[in-house]
């Protein structure tokens, strides 16, 4: 356990509560175990049905829920609210500083810490871990699909792989940009010294490890056969492994919702004096608008999951037609969450890409207000399109033209993002630094994702493409090709600030070309098998589709290898053999780059009051004067 380095502040020996706090992660594991067994015993004894050889469904549901509660209790999340309820004195400034991780060294990364920068780093690790495990799942899936009939997997293990890969990647994508970069940089960019609800922010992160582990534990409970969409009544039919999906996804839903709430309040209330909404960096706009999506969409998922647990535990038959329920209920609730969810993935990535563009074009962001308009348009429209997932469901055929129109209409605000990108690049002397390569690939990949989306939004062509690999490749273009490429761009760009270390330029540039080409090889093959009639999530497929599937698998191995290479470069250059980074290596005018590295614990000694947009490369004006000598501009970096 790395969390034992003792942190003290002042002269007094550490109190008992601080000792417990330092051992939080160990206590959390113990708490989770106790919670699970208590919940399992209660559930099985009190309301268990007892006719399942694997144990009781109610016991597992209660066990998982209480294990999550036990985990959070061990981390120390309930100390503060309980102390308030008992009327204990409010924490002193010293206590708050301790909780914030001041002087905590490396250990603060392994315990409940309220510093948004620590939480951002925790997210980096968690996101990469999810990406790694989910990617392994993809490799197994592609291996199985080398042949048209089952070879390496059984029908059961294959569907569990599909479920784990997809659900883990959805968890990853929900926070891939907003988690690491939103948490780390939004408070700095708006001139705040912390988030509005720092404990809540820590909670949104610490919900992730239990969610991931509970989801993975499905392999001990028979797995689940529904994929990430959890369609009922198939979910009603599933064995206990389904409960892992339900509880894990509800923890993620909770995290998305609370993170949204926290970001909204932070951006509205904690902006520095002089930081108007018209001066917010475009990345902050992206995160801010995404937060509304999270806050408003996740409750639909949480409600649907609660209903599904009622179905599975009390035979409530909410989704079972023979009992008076309807599968359409799940489909609607799920996609009412599910479609805004895909914009929860991509909006922060749009923001991040537009935030980085001016740094490499050395020009102001072209059309800042157009960019905001585009982001707002996507946000509003994204709540009005979910029925496009139900075009072949037989539900409300009369409404299909409306949802076809609303879905196609989203391409107008999305097009504005491209207009801004092109306007920014037009007549610029772009610096081809490594993040810029990933930005270019992002624009290309998302363009394919968007254009393939047009074919899916059109009802007649959707009749043939729906539910097939065309859809699968389409959303991999948007999630992997765009969002994960934005994540890689962001890591290469921001790691020098976050860690003071930098990734090897030549290796990363080689990795870029490998990942870009293998990604497109994989998913162009899969777009093709989709057009030719291959359904999603099948272990067997028609013989004539084998050559394209082999091509997809070979490219997928290269893609997996190049993703691994990225992880390898990152770990090698940042952790094992640290390569110190230059201060402000990209010569950005953003305020985050003009604070000392590492960023001071409370960001600003004195909060700046004069702010401008961080894109004034024609005048060279820094977004805010932070009193830290700016490194001289001039002399491009590769």
């Amino acid at each position, binding site marked *: 356990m790395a969390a034992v380095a003792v942190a003290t502040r002042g002269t007094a020996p550490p109190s008992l509560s601080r000792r417990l706090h330092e051992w939080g992660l160990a206590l959390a594991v113990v708490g989770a175990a106790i919670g699970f067994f208590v919940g399992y015993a209660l559930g099985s004894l009190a309301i268990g049905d007892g006719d399942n050889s694997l144990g009781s469904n109610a016991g597992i549901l209660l066990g998982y829920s209480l294990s999550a509660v036990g985990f959070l209790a061990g981390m120390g999340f309930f100390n503060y609210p309980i102390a308030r309820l008992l009327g204990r004195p409010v924490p002193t400034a010293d206590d708050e500083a301790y909780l914030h991780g001041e002087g905590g060294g490396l250990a603060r990364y392994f315990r409940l810490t309220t510093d948004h920068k620590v939480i951002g780093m925790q997210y980096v690790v968690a996101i990469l871990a999810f990406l790694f495990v989910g990617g392994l799942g993809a490799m197994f899936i592609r291996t199985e699909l080398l042949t048209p009939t089952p070879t390496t997997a059984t029908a059961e293990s294959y569907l569990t792989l599909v479920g784990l890969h997809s659900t883990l990647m959805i968890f990853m994508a929900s926070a891939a940009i907003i988690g690491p970069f939103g948490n780390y940089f939004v408070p700095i960019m708006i001139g705040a010294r912390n988030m509005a609800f720092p404990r809540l922010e820590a909670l949104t992160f610490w919900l992730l490890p239990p969610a991931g582990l509970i989801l993975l534990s499905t392999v001990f409970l028979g797995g689940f056969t529904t994929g990430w969409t959890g369609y009922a009544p198939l979910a009603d039919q599933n064995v206990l492994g389904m409960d892992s999906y339900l509880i894990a996804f509800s923890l993620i839903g909770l995290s998305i919702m609370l993170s949204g709430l926290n970001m909204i309040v932070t951006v509205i209330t904690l902006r520095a004096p002089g930081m108007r909404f018209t001066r917010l960096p475009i990345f902050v706009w992206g995160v801010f608008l995404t937060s509304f999506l999270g806050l408003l969409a996740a409750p639909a998922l949480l409600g649907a999951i609660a209903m599904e647990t009622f179905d599975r535990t009390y035979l409530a038959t909410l989704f079972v037609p023979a009992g008076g329920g309807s599968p359409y209920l799940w489909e609607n609730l799920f996609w009412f969450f599910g479609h805004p969810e895909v914009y929860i993935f991509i909006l922060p990535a749009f923001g991040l890409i537009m935030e980085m563009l001016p740094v490499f074009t050395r020009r102001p962001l072209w059309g800042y207000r157009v960019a905001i308009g585009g982001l707002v348009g996507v946000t509003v429209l994204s709540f009005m399109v979910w029925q496009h997932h139900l075009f072949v469901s037989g*539900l409300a055929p009369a409404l299909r033209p409306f949802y076809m129109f609303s879905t196609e209409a989203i391409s107008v605000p999305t097009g504005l993002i491209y207009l801004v990108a092109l306007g920014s690049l037009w007549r610029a002397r772009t610096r081809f630094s490594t993040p810029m390569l990933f930005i270019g690939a992002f624009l290309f990949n998302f363009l394919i994702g968007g254009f393939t989306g047009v074919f899916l939004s059109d009802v007649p*062509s959707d009749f*043939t493409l729906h*539910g097939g690999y065309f859809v699968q490749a389409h959303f991999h273009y948007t999630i992997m090709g765009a969002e994960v490429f934005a994540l890689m761009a962001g890591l290469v760009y921001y790691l020098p600030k976050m860690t003071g270390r930098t990734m090897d330029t030549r290796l990363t540039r080689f990795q870029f070309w490998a990942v870009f080409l293998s990604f497109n090889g994989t998913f162009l093959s899969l777009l093709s098998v989709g057009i030719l009639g291959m359904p999603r999530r099948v272990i067997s497929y028609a013989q004539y589709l084998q050559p394209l599937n082999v091509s997809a698998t070979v490219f997928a191995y290269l893609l997996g290898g190049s993703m691994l290479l990225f992880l390898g470069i990152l770990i090698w250059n940042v952790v094992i053999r640290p390569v110190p980074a230059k201060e402000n290596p990209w010569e950005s005018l953003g305020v985050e780059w003009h604070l000392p590295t590492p960023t001071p614990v409370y960001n600003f000694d004195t909060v700046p009051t004069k702010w401008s947009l961080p894109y004034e490369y024609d005048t060279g004006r820094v977004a805010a004067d932070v009193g830290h000598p700016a490194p001289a501009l001039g002399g491009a970096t590769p």
Partner: protein
Amino acid sequence: MTERRRRYIRMYALVWFVLAVAGDIGLALGPTPPFQASDLASSQSTVIKILAVIAWPVFSAVVATIAFTLFGNRVAPHEGDIDPGKLRGDSRPQIAWISASIVIVLSLAVYGTVALASDQPGAGISTTSASLRQPASPSDPLEVQVIAQQWWFTYRYPTYGGVETPQLVIPVGQKIQFHVTSLDVVHSFWFYALGVKADAVPLNDNVFTVTPTQTGTYRVQCSELCGLWHGNMNADDAMVVSSSDFAAWIQQQQAMDAPILKYLPAYSHTYEPNPPAYGT
């Protein structure tokens, strides 16, 4: 703008134009999935073709512009070519871009709606039984119930006394009305060659009308994840045959099923036995 920059713009525009025209010719003349085995498949194929022909030049234009802005400026880095930052959002390109994308979106939506209306493929939920009759002329649709369950499809011909078969056989040139339903979870009936895809939802009748135009043996498969053997819920034996072959085949099926059929009403939509109640 220098002469050199103008030359580069012309070069990129030319490359784009050649690519766009060549691509569009290929897309327009080449075969487009899901091909031509039914009226529905042909119209879907046309829709996909038209969308692709519209999309390709736009897509390649954006890619060419990205490429030009990235590389064109790089190879012609004269000071006069580089705008240091006066361009903060000129309103003319914005208006042009927004109007163009709105026009494209509106025409796509109108075209899609018209194509959808002329196909009339899905009638959606209907639990009331329509008037039942044996098809007298090719303009009367032949009803075929598709009953999905884990993990196969059963086909029922209500107008032929409720004959049930594990194999789908339909006559060419005859309007077929699929009534898709399920006995357990959500499935989706996908007859790729005919351009038919309809979710099978318990207690729901999802109607899809199609006229096959080419005889042949085709694949039908489930396209909604429905549990363990979803990947094997397919068959390569669905047949579109001539109407005389169909008449012979259905008579043979009726003869085989005669001992059961005599207990059933002559024409009925109702599938017996009813789906089992939940939990029993």
